């Protein structure tokens, strides 16, 4: 059973620059351990060794997009139950509603403030944990 603290974040993003900024922001501001992958294939390679607490996924990616990446990661035991968050530049209300129905806790829109990103992720984690406690009893 998880001790309740968020430490390891697996992040999948095809844009190299955004990947760097998000990693820096989460590592330097939030003090999280981040593994950033450029594609679904890369993520599948590292997910079991890394054993993430949370998944952070871009939506619009070539070949395998965010929702499909999530589905594939979910098949791995190490990522089967961890909370997931989408981060996307698709900001139309209809898109966001659709993404939320795909089994993620929340959707973060781009551009975001890198100084607040860690807090936001931390809050999502808290909400997820308290929801989970209520669910289990």
């Amino acid at each position, binding site marked *: 059973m998880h001790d309740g603290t968020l430490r390891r974040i697996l992040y999948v993003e*095809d*844009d*190299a*620059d*955004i990947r*760097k*900024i*998000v990693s*820096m*922001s989460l590592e*330097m*501001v939030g003090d999280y351990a981040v593994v950033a992958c*450029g*594609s679904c294939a890369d993520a599948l390679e590292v997910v079991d060794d890394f054993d993430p607490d949370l998944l952070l996924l871009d939506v*619009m*990616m*070539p*070949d395998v997009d965010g929702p499909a990446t999530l589905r594939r990661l979910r098949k791995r035991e190490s990522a089967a139950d961890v909370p997931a968050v989408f981060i996307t*530049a*698709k*900001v*139309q209300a209809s*898109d966001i509603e659709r993404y939320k129905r795909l089994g993620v806790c929340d959707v973060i829109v*781009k*551009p*975001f*403030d*890198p*100084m607040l990103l860690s807090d936001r992720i931390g809050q999502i984690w808290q909400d997820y944990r308290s929801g989970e406690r209520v669910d289990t009893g």
Partner: protein
Amino acid sequence: MEKRERHKFAYGIAGLLILAFFVWTFNLLLSVQSNWAESNDVTAMDKDVHALFDPWRNLNRPGNDVLENYEVAAQKKALGRYLQEYRQARGRLDMHGRSKVDLGDYYRDMDAAAQQAETLANRVLELAEQRESLRLAGADPALISAAETEAATTMARMDQAFQSGLDIIAGMDQVIDQRLLDLESARRKGVGSLYLIVFVALVSSALSLMLLRRTSTQGVALQSGSERLNAIVNNVVDGIVTVDESGNIESLNRTAEEIFGYSSDSMVGHNFRALISPESRALYDTADFSSDSQSAGKVAGFTGIRSDGVHFSMELEGTRISVEGRPIIIHIVRDVTERKRSQKRLQLAATVFENTSEGIMITDRNGRIQSTNPAFTAITGFAADEVLGQNPRILQSGMQSRDFYEAMWQSISDTGHWQGEIVNRRKNGEAYTQWLNINAVKDGSDRVSHYVGVTFDISELKASERMKDEFIATVSHELRTPLTSIHGSLSLLDSGVPAKSPEKSAELIRIAKENSQRLVRLIDDILSIAKIESDTMRFQLRSVNLRELVADAVEANQDYAKQFGVRLLVRSGTEDAHVLADKDRLMQVLANLLSNAVKHSPKGGEISVETRHNEGYWRVTVTDNGVGIPKSFRPEVFKKFAQADASDRRKRGGTGLGLSISKAIIDRLGGRIGFESDPGVRTCFYFDLPKMQQHWGVEAGGERIMTSAGLEAGRE
């Protein structure tokens, strides 16, 4: 003495004639009266047959509903109520006795259908109940599904019974409508005969009047008879003019005075031909007004002249009779201007119906299609005779819910009107979106007689709206992506977080800078696309030597290529290659093809650029030995925001719009653009432009302006 005998004889004959005339008139009145009574009854019957539609439709509901919600008790109750309502409506039909419409067979069929519908509906409810209790008892799913299947099969039979009931009601309605039509035509005939009576009475009265004048043996009684006759003649709706053999007017009634605008006094003695326009006098002179035929002598196409000089369309009848051995002609005159006008209006309406681009469909009040126009055929693919008598539901796509149609019919029955978007299906099976406007048309007695649907196909409009929305969403996404990097790196730098690490700071500054440049390129390209798509991009056309242009482009991009460790080589001959084009736009295309080739070449790669003949065109090719284009991506190459590998785009700094802009430019210049790719070996992009012709008359220095919509103006 001899004269008196003759009179007696004449009176005797006249008396007999009048008696026969009265008997005939009396019979006629009787038949008109009974026609009227039956019409009332049949109309009431028609109403009752119509009132059968709704209760009958309701009978089909509980079965359908129970399969959706399994509220068996509620649906049983509903069925009971609906059956009650149906029986009441059906009972009313038995109360019509007076008419000659025999619906006995239909009643029998209807009752059988109702019996069957009731049995089937009950069976469906029973099956639904079984299924529910199976479900509650946690029975084997196979059993539940068997009950469901049987219920669905029963419901299908129910639908058949229901449909045949609808057909029977429609059949009854048709019989009744036919009877109503028969009654109507019988009534018209009766009324026509009444007119004839009046006419005969008038003519005989007119004759008598003249006889009386001439014989001058009038008594007081006869005098008053002639006054009555005058009153009648003066109040007839048609103009009556009598003329003598040489065409001089002897008398005219008040209507004729009104038609021609002259008083009786000023006309008597003048020639009747003066009242007819010169053009139709020849027709008058040759018209055969014979004496012995009832119908003879009715001639249309005359133009009359009013006292104020205005010409008008006139119908003229002439009956030649002999009064005391002296022939006279009785003319009946009608001003048909109004009728002509309404004929013209009808013609206009028919022309509009045939030629408008809106599809028009007219149904009777039971929804049977009676008429459609050519635009309807163009939109739906159904020819007029294919849909005649059909219900418009043959057009349904199944993409609207039952609620949608219910709301539609509710609106039509409440307000007589509905309009909105609806997805229908063409004859070839293709679904399309149309704008539809339905109006109920009412007859004189305020009863709906027809429905008119006017429609136009908006599927192309919808598709282009969708494409526009998608484009805007994509542009928003594409602009936000570099902005995320710029905003993110600047915020981190600003916070001082990476201050300890100069490497990280430098990296963040590079990210902000490169993404700013990328944003600028994106905005330029989006503007280019917008200009091209709104046809406002201007082209300054002049003679361009492709050989020189290629050399310039290679020169300009040499430094860029060096950054990637790639060499650009020109392999053109020495021949000039003149085309009519906009130099700057063409440079844009070349720069785009070159930078694409550079970005996709391996380090140390070579890119060759060549200008050569290709029949009536000059072809420029840009060939690289890079990774090439995967087969699956080939159809997408020239589409907006298309890139084989989107991660490449960021690494290589493209916008995903370059090739789509290049294609648009080459298309507008009358050329063609394409590529051949053998991944890993060679990839060749090329464009062809028509060779410059002498007779185009554009010398070096001369130019023409063209917007992307087309050639605008020539100028030296």
